[in-house]
């Protein structure tokens, strides 16, 4: 679980504004989304999610690229990208851990769970392990209050997670 040894995979950080090319499949997926809405701007969030699924985050160059496909201003796309908490405008780890810090999980001591995560990973909220494996973020009530404290790792929701479970649970995410 020592995350400090390896360096981040260059491929995840090498993308800069000039070099970004929207993948053909992503462009088609975005264009397909347009059909669901009266105006193209509405596909903006989904477009950002499509790009993020491929790259793990939304690289700078994706903003004007998406804006071009949608026919809207790049500033509008950036405004949206920076508003939503699940759109990442900087690189994140291969796995994103979302820890519920809302009231029911507060009352069932998510703070002890968070401390265990912070200790095992060596990072705090908003940080990524230096091997690029995990990013740790808080999240709004996960709707798993009957089994708090709850967290999500990628698409999987868990609860109640005891501090002692943390190390073993994370091993499943390479």
């Amino acid at each position: 679980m020592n995350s400090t040894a390896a360096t981040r995979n260059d491929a995840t950080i090498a993308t800069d504004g000039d070099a970004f090319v929207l993948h053909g499949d992503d462009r088609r997926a975005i264009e397909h989304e347009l059909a669901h809405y009266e105006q193209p701007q509405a596909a903006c969030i989904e477009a950002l999610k499509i790009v993020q699924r491929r790259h793990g985050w939304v690289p700078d160059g994706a903003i004007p690229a998406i804006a071009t496909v949608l026919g809207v201003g790049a500033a509008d796309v950036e405004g949206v990208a920076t508003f939503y908490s699940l759109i990442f405008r900087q690189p994140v780890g291969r796995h994103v851990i979302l820890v519920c810090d809302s009231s029911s999980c507060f009352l069932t001591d998510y703070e002890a769970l968070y401390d265990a995560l912070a200790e095992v990973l060596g990072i705090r909220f908003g940080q990524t392990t230096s091997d690029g494996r995990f990013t740790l973020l808080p999240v709004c009530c996960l709707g798993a209050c009957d089994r708090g404290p709850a967290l999500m790792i990628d698409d999987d929701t868990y609860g109640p997670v005891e501090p002692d479970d943390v190390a073993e649970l994370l091993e499943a995410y390479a």
Partner: protein
Amino acid sequence: MTASRSSLRTSLRYRCQLRQAAAERRAETHPLTWRLHDDNRPLGFDEYLDMDGYAAVREVLGRQSPDEVIDQVKEANVRGRGGAGFSAGMKWSLTMKGEGIPRGYLVCNADEMEPGTFKDRLLLEQQPHLLIEGMILGGYANNSRYGYIFLRGEYVEAARAVTQALEEARAAGWLGKDIAGSGFDFDIALHTGAGRYICGEETALISSLEGSRANPRAKPPFPGQSGAWGKPTVVNNVETLCNVPAILRHGVEWYQGLSGGRSDDGGTKLYGVSGRVNEPGLWELPIGTTGQELLDLAGGIRDSKALKTWLPGGGSTGFLLPEHLELPLDFDTVGQYGSRMGTGLLTVVTEEQSVVALLRNLEQFFARESCGWCTPCRDGLPWVVKILQSIERGEGEQGDIELLEDLAVKLGPGKTFCAHAPGAAMPLQSAIKHFRDEFERGISHRARAAHEDPIPVGEV
């Protein structure tokens, strides 16, 4: 090692679970959940059809007028289950429709993010066809052209279930052109979000659906007049829409009777309990069930501790006391006691837990989730958090409680575009009202202000 890893993953994996066994649930008494399996499996399309599924659509479309549908929903008095409690039938009757008015949208608010709320997830994951049926009927009543299910991005299981159900319904002709030979065209798209609690506010949700930042809009115009892309738009919560098919199938009187004289409101409610109780969970019960009944179903408080206080329906409802456990939990009753029923999912606070700390956690949530559009909300909430943090550390100053009370008023209804700030003000106001002594204990300088101006005015 691998086996133990996978078993820990399996045993910790969250599964949404109704706490009532199938044997206890019947069509006449549990309209929302009677079809559900005991083992959290989603109800299949064929199973839904075999259990009276889409019968209301067949019965209503083309046989009753949209106004007749609205009248029944109005008469049944279905109050908005997202927490606001506004009559769904009334909302539908205010949607602009008719000659020369473009057909608009029916949007299902599935952005469940209210702290302490875990009910819509059950319906979305395990019975998406009931929601789709409710939406078809809502779309028909409101003359909507198209429907959207606005689902929070984290509900991955729900997205899977809803996507599959939409495909099944479309393939079987329940969505698309000329539904069930009625001449009514209607389809639904799933729209998944990307975080932010504010998206659950109906006008912010519309902004988000349109692909913008989720800033709310002033009302009027109400969404029913001018919503998504300027078209008449109806926004209803998942549970609200899921109530509609059975009302149209079994009638208003039956629906009213479900609450069995406990409440003027009709129907059932998905109630739940979370916090340090022995068996937290979710139940479908007659509306007007009391907090005490729910606490008993949840097996009481862990370690035989006493109840200190509770929130009746999420983070934006007011704190209630143990003496309020006997009240029927319906919209009008709870509203008379400085709180709101909200989503009807109780958050239990036990005797050894600090109200100041919990309130600080709640206000941090509201401060973080403010969209920043209105000044009182954007600037007031972080200020509230700062004061609460100092009181929590025992470093509060004389006048802090009065300042918090003043802020609660300035964050209250009418000062901002939406209900986010008033939602944050309600637990603040009620916590001070009921637990003022806890706040006072956090104030260290009783005699005078701690930070008296170091340079006396007039002497420089």
